[in-house]
């Protein structure tokens, strides 16, 4: 059944277009998360369950949480309470909820059905990926670890506060 793929693709496209056209950063983050979840379902349908899980955990989980933290750190002041109340209006969450409900409905169909909602794509198991990753691609693991370490050091260096500037202002 190819319909799963096409419905998830439509959800991904629509939510991505909505994500880049919203004026409020949190609204577009909601649509962005929906788009990433739709991508995860597409990966699952395409026979890559390991990648689907990683997309949900790392992209929709960790990276989007980083974005939310930054938005939280930038939006300070007394007007945040008013904004908070405005964010709870139904217009803010009904669109992402509907799109995510579509995805959830598809997942329930896949889990409950006898696999007829999945196309006949051969599933590349996590075991195969891991064997390839720690066999011929072992250099990639080393490169990824170095990249993540340099990213960590870079983010720490850029994110620290300047100690000398506040002293200059005081004197």
């Amino acid at each position: 059944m190819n319909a799963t793929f096409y419905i998830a693709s439509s959800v991904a496209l629509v939510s991505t277009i909505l994500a880049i056209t919203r004026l409020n950063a949190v609204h577009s983050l909601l649509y962005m998360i929906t788009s990433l979840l739709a991508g995860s379902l597409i990966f699952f349908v395409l026979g890559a369950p390991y990648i689907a899980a990683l997309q949900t955990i790392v992209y929709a989980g960790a990276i989007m949480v980083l974005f939310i933290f930054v938005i939280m750190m930038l939006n300070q002041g007394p007007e945040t309470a008013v904004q908070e109340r405005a964010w709870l209006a139904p217009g803010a969450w009904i669109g992402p909820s509907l799109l995510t409900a579509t995805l959830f409905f598809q997942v329930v169909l896949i889990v409950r059905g006898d696999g007829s909602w999945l196309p006949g794509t051969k599933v590349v198991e996590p075991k195969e990926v891991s064997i390839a990753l720690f066999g011929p691609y072992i250099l990639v693991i080393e490169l990824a670890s170095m990249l993540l370490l340099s990213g960590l050091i870079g983010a720490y260096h850029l994110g620290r506060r300047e100690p000398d500037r506040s002293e200059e202002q005081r004197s």
Partner: protein
Amino acid sequence: MMAHIPMEHGLMLAAALFCVGFVGLLVRRNILYMLMCVEIMLNAAGMAFVVAGSRWEHADGQIMYLIILTMAAAEVAVALALVLRFYRQFQTLDADAANTMRG
């Protein structure tokens, strides 16, 4: 054997997502939105790899996606730290505020 999803459709979806992200990168001037558009583009590129890997039933496409995922995680950490510095210096998120260099 059930019908396969044609590889062209998966690649077309990846290309469409990439184009949406690219247009957003060109149109939006808020630096947070530009970062999100970069994330969309990276994700679309990874999706193309996974589609191709699923077509040839190999694990290589998924490993390429893993590399892109690692790169995106490192990139977003550094870029969000830059956004915080940017906001601290200019008190705005408009990318055009930093159109002059001190030098």
